């Protein structure tokens, strides 16, 4: 067999194995969908076959729960968090990457240490803090603590470090200040890094369960995960409804993923997060 033919065969086998695993990975979601399309009474039979596929479970969830409102709360909070994270982290990373000042490395390590602190450790002090600021039951209480994300600074800094210095030298000769260099030259080039940070800040914020559960006691402004966790018990053995609510809760993020999926890999490759 020639080298080329061997290579071709090898790639075929790779593709086959990979497709098998990808299908295995999609099975739980497919089964959730299959269950959601069954009438509740049929879900206790473990077969993929559906006698009367229908979307009534989805319709019931949309009608009987506040899922649309949870969606709105989550969307607002996650958007606010993602935008805030991009702005403050990129500004800080710009200084850490492009400017020289005393204790710069020390500061960078202090920021990185934040990755190690488990968020649960901070919950009690943060809760008391929000209480004293009179921010409980507001979107700010959910969003603000999530904005200073060490890993976002790290992603931006690594990306900025990779950009050639000559870029700003020209602008500097033209008399441009730092803010202008940041806004006009660096940030427009940082789109892959921005995409990566937006996705991860948005996903983390959207999926957070414990913190919103504690600070949003008012049911009118519940987020999606909190809402899903609270209705779960009320469905009892109505598995079709449970699965329909889970799938509806997943739709927005899957949409975000499909929109940005090209940028995710590119974003990480460009940031040098690979090491």
């Amino acid at each position, binding site marked *: 067999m020639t080298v080329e033919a061997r290579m071709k065969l090898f*790639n075929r086998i790779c593709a086959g194995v990979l497709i098998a695993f990808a299908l295995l*990975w999609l099975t739980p*979601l497919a*089964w959730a969908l299959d*269950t959601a399309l069954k009438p509740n009474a049929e879900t206790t039979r473990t077969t993929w076959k559906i006698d009367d596929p229908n979307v009534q479970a989805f319709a019931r969830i949309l009608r009987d729960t506040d899922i649309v409102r949870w969606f709105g709360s989550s969307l607002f909070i996650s958007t606010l968090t993602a935008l805030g994270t991009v702005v403050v982290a990129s*500004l800080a990373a710009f200084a850490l990457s492009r400017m020289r000042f005393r204790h710069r490395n020390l500061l960078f390590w202090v920021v990185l240490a934040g990755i190690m*602190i488990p968020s649960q450790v901070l919950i009690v002090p943060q809760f008391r803090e929000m209480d004293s600021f009179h921010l409980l039951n507001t979107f700010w209480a959910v969003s603000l603590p999530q904005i200073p994300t060490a890993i976002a600074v790290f992603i931006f800094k690594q990306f900025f470090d990779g950009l050639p210095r000559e870029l700003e030298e020209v602008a500097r000769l033209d008399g441009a200040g730092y803010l202008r260099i940041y806004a006009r030259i660096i940030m427009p080039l940082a789109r892959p890094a921005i995409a990566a940070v937006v996705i991860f800040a948005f996903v983390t914020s959207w999926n957070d369960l414990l913190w919103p559960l504690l600070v949003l006691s008012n049911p009118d402004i519940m987020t999606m995960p909190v809402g899903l966790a609270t209705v779960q018990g009320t469905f009892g053995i109505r598995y079709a409804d449970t699965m329909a609510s889970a799938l509806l809760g997943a739709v927005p*993020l899957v949409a975000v993923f499909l929109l940005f999926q090209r940028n995710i890999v590119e974003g990480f490759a460009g940031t040098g997060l690979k090491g």
Partner: protein
Amino acid sequence: MTAETAVRRTGAAGTAEASPRPRGQGLPAAGFLTPFLLLYLLFILGPALYGLVMSFFDTSAVKSGLNGFAGLGNYAEALQSSDFWSSLWHTFWFTILTTPPLIVLALVFALLADRVRRGRWFFRLAFFVPYVLPSAVVALIWMWIYTPGLGLIEAALTKAGITAPNWLGDPGWAMPSLAITTLWWTLGFNFVLYLAGLQEIPRELYEASAMDGASPWQQIRSITIPMLGRTTTLVAVLQVIASLKVFDQMYIMTSGGPNYATRSILEYVYDSGFTNFRIGYASAVSMLFFVVVLAVSAIWFSLVRRGEKEL
């Protein structure tokens, strides 16, 4: 490594001297750093320090203020408590169960996906989409899959003639079941990091070795895996930290049961603080745990680094 750092350092110093920039950039730098540092101090470092202070007091969740001074009492109690040690062990057990498959499978899937020309979006979708799901959604789906008598895996195993265990109900099986769910849920993140790492390897290396008649397997072993060394370091360190910090899965799927077999250290913190209202004690446990995370990360990081050098 040291030579590389030295070169980089002189390189950076060289450009700094060559450019006509003024030396002190402290003031504008402070301006750029302030928004982040202010929020960081207010919501991360500040609360962390406040937590440290509370760990020395009998702070209660139902009373405001710090309450009576306890000194090292909370720490002594935690270190003597069998609940503390068993939940710490559960956390380690979960980390041991999840870390190797989450690194190795992510690497294998990324290596395979890198060779496939068409339909890359499909593989990214299949492996990465679970990662973006809220833990509540993941929990709902997997509790359904594990349901005794009705669940998907039990049905498949019964057909194959195997008696399925009571996944979440059997103390011996509950943790592996949570590990399987976590593998499915979070593999996509490491997969994407590896895909990004693979993109950075120059194609010419493969072309040159193919000319020399290297087989695909030889290429993977002597080019791809060594070139991915730094990605592996990053993935391994991030994964260990993430696994040690596990909470949501246990909280929703088993509430730490059956018979406390899946109570992780953070669930223990949560139980002490919010169920028993002993915030001071919970803070002390948090601090001990933070020290453990730091120590494990440091040891693990140096181990992985050494392995990387030997490759």
